[in-house]
């Protein structure tokens, strides 16, 4: 087990290198020039040349890349053009807000999604099942930003129950985390439903029934754990994907997290911040995947991580 974790971590380093290189490339290929943005369009050629040199943007790409890699290894992404501060600490400062949002959303999605999925999956074809299925399909097909705006219209503007923007109190957390959680909840519910329904048809469920267990005991004692195995994988992988949703949601609700930082940085061509944030997100996603694998292998004894790759 330990050896496997080390192996995964080494693979992870390779992946991070790839991610760093990709970031480097994309940022430079994208249109827009930070020097012009910083100095405005009426700057003199002299001013532009000076700033370009001080940012190292005049050197050949390869030399920029090599410097970049050694810096990345030290988690040094340079200074933010806009703030003049080192980029990474700037990014790390935004992590707690995003983590709060993502963890709340995940908790909502897992609790509600599992409950709905279990309810529907243990009685396939029933009315409950059909209602849950219809709702989850609907939820999955609405775009996040639209749902967010609808929720703002309803709960913040029409009923004036909840704040529509900003952070600080638990009430501020409600709308953005629910918006982020809704499509995720639908995914968890649908998957749980399918998985539970499938598991309940397995022969070992008949064995459990043949012991005289109640349906509830059969579900809790035999079907639940086994039907959760695929769900765990998807939750783990989707938590990484949740970052994408967080970018949108944070901007809709002015949530001061990584997502709004990235959008600001991108529109200002603040290379250092974009790189630091993207790199950090890649690292987080990778970590989620590793943890998912470990949990998965603990749930299913057939896939213990020792030995087999």
């Amino acid at each position: 087990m330990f050896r496997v974790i080390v192996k995964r971590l080494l693979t992870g380093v390779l992946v991070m290198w790839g991610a760093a290189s990709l970031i480097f490339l994309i940022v430079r290929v994208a249109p827009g020039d930070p020097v012009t943005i910083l100095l405005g369009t009426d700057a003199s050629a002299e001013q532009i040349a000076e700033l370009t040199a001080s940012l190292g943007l005049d050197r050949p790409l390869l030399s920029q890349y090599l410097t970049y890699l050694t810096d990345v290894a030290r988690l040094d992404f340079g200074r933010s053009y806009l703030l003049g501060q080192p980029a990474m600490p700037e990014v790390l400062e935004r992590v707690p807000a995003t983590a709060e949002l993502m963890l709340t959303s995940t908790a909502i999605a897992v609790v509600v999604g599992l409950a709905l999925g279990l309810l529907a999956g243990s009685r396939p074809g029933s009315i409950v099942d059909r209602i849950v299925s219809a709702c989850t399909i609907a939820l999955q097909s609405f775009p996040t930003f639209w749902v967010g705006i609808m929720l703002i219209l309803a709960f913040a503007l029409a009923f004036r129950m909840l704040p529509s923007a900003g952070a600080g109190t638990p009430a501020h957390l409600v709308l953005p985390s629910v918006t982020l959680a809704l499509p995720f909840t639908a995914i968890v519910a649908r998957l749980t439903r399918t998985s539970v329904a499938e598991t309940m048809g397995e022969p070992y469920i008949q064995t459990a029934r043949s012991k005289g267990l109640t349906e509830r005991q059969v579900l809790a004692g035999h079907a639940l754990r086994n039907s959760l195995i695929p769900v765990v994988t998807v939750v783990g992988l989707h938590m990484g994907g949740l970052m994408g949703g967080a970018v949108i949601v944070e901007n809709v609700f002015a949530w001061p997290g990584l997502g709004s930082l990235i959008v600001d940085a991108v529109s200002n061509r603040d290379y250092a911040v974009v790189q630091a944030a993207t790199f950090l997100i890649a690292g987080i996603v990778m970590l989620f995947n590793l943890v998912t694998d470990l949990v998965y292998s603990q749930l299913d004894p057939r896939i213990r991580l020792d030995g087999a790759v």
Partner: protein
Amino acid sequence: MSPLLSVAGLVVDLPSPAGVLRVVDGVSFDIPEATTVGLIGESGSGKTMTANAVIGLLPGGAVLDGALRWRGEDVLRADPGRRRRLRGREIAMIFQDPLAALNPTQRIGRQVGEILRRSGMRRDEVRRRVVELFDRAGIPEPSRRLRNYPHEFSGGMRQRAMIALALAGNPALLLADEPTTALDVTVQARILRLLRSIQRDEGLAMLLVSHDLRVVAHVAHQVVVMYAGRVAERGPTSAVLSRPAHPYTRALVQSVPAVRTRTAIAHPLPGAPASPARRPAGCAFHPRCPLARERCRSEQPVVRQVADGRWSACHFAGEVSRS
């Protein structure tokens, strides 16, 4: 003395895309205490559905009729709670594919001991009892093996674990649905011997479902021959196999040369097995029956007593072992 289980006019209707299928059609037989009854017939003849009806584990939407009298009590009409409490503690079941029938993510010891644990037995007691059961089922090194998962057992060992699991609730009747079909040939005989010795030693009644006449001939005291969801013939095993009272039984016996040998060559059963979806009118066997005549096409034979303890659903039962 009334039998342990009396199946009387059992009917099982299953919903299917093509409409309701009568997969079991008026089946009657008894299982006396401490007796092994073999249930035999071609694939699709309704053996599994009969056994599942006895333990009350039919697919959703199944509609039953007739009676299932357990020690005289009609359990088919009992409330679901009563039916459930019979399972495991009075009637237990082992299945064809022991790998699929065991929960892949639970240690085998835990699965075998579950019924004991849930009845409130202390943990160390449960463990001691599980070791005993493993031992009884012929699993070596029980205290080590009970920590294994099903995928760490061989096929034969899995079926032994399944047997231990079924015995845990100390049942009076064991339903065994093709218990050796999925196993290696070399293992089959050992599992059958184990079942027979357990049946004798514990005074267990057993319903042994099989499509293999040799298995039934070996283990069963009595045999019920099913055809297309109905009983073709039933009676003491040796009498039925040596002097069949139904042409279908005769054809079965003749198709297996090693059972009761007068002929050395196997006669494969001619024609296609009848399915409950297209059950012929009259005697369902008539399209394949060498003795069939006009009456067989229109009049469904009733199961009637043809000799002491012998029952047959053939209009011409008396001619079968003469011709």
